[in-house]
């Protein structure tokens, strides 16, 4: 693993996450996927918002931006438009992405801009002591839901798919090889890619719902998920109430920054051909 440690700021390690937190596993999976692709450190930019998950960029030795709450995708859109040759990755949490940054998320998916979004979904706001988030399943407990959550939760992968994301996958911190494969193919996808990584929060989610520690939570995640290929063979009866993991959607389409460059090129050619020069063209109503 010393081959992946060179992607970390080792003077910052050990990290601040609780013992048994799944966010470290997801960060490790991302680094392994980048290592597999052999990307240069100078060609990768990682953006994050606020929350437990967003602390990941502090430990990664790439060009990283730690931005305001929910606006990670907005900042990443700017970075991608200014420097389309960079691989822009957003590391965000379930609250950061689905609640505070929900609009940025769906509109980035609509534009199909070349950003890879990794949503570390631990079903709860871990950093601020366990309030329920839009991803908390119905009936589960949190600090602000002492009698159980009455709200329905988002299916973020379906939301991304409906908004127009071209690559959608879901894995967990238990199924790490699958997670590495999904991030690997998401990084190669030209458009907006979403990988939802279900992660465990033993400190709040595990304790409030009496699931147990990190090991029990991982077993709970393992029992609650089924691979999308296996689900097709098993039928809807056996997979009822289980979360589908694997590659859920892959339909490449034209990418936003490439379209934008093409537009600039087209308009520039039109201006160059205009007889009256740039000023005459600009003052022309056309």
């Amino acid at each position, binding site marked *: *693993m*010393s*081959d*992946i*440690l*060179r992607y*970390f*700021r*080792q*003077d910052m*390690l*050990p*990290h601040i*996450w*609780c*013992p*048994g*937190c*799944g*966010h*470290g*596993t997801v960060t*490790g*999976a991302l680094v*392994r996927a980048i290592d597999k692709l052999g990307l*240069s*450190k*100078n060609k990768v930019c990682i953006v994050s918002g606020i929350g437990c998950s967003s602390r990941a960029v502090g430990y990664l*030795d790439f060009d990283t931006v730690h931005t305001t709450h929910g606006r990670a995708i907005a900042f990443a859109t700017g970075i991608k438009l200014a420097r389309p040759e960079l691989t822009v990755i957003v590391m965000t949490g379930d609250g950061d992405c689905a609640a505070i940054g929900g609009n940025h998320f769906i509109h980035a998916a609509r534009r199909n801009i070349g950003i890879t979004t990794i949503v570390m979904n631990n079903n709860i706001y871990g950093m601020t002591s366990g309030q329920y988030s839009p991803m908390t399943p119905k009936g589960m407990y949190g600090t602000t839901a002492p009698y159980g959550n009455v709200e329905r939760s988002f299916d973020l992968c379906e939301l991304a798919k409906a908004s127009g994301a071209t690559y959608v996958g879901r894995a967990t*911190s*238990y199924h*790490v*090889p699958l997670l*590495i494969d999904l991030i690997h193919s998401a990084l190669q996808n030209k458009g907006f890619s979403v990988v939802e990584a279900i992660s465990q929060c*033993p400190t709040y989610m595990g304790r409030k719902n009496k699931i147990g*520690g*990190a*090991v029990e939570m*991982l077993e709970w995640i393992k029992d609650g998920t089924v691979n999308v290929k296996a689900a097709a063979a098993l039928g809807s009866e056996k997979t009822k109430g289980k979360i589908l993991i694997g590659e859920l959607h892959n339909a490449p389409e034209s990418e936003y920054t490439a379209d934008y460059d093409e537009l600039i090129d087209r308009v520039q050619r039109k201006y160059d051909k205009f007889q009256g020069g740039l000023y005459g063209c600009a003052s022309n109503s056309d």
Partner: protein
Amino acid sequence: MDEKKKEYFHIIRERYCKGCNICVAFCPKQVLVLKNGKVFPERPQLCIGCRACELRCPDFAIEVHLKGEQPEEGRDSDSVDYTLPPEAMHG
């Protein structure tokens, strides 16, 4: 064809380990135990090199290597000169 059983050894970074027990619980061969709250390879001869511990460790504290194979020269924290700015390290 006589195939010798592959043997593995483990590198533990005790400073990084938080003793969350994930690697111990999910090891298929019960190679690892917790000692004084830190992971320890008690029965390394049983290891099959599946790297379940290495991949699931949230703290990057354990790695598995094949014996006889020289592990890649890593930039471990004690061999890094932190007076240099991190940009100078970018390759």
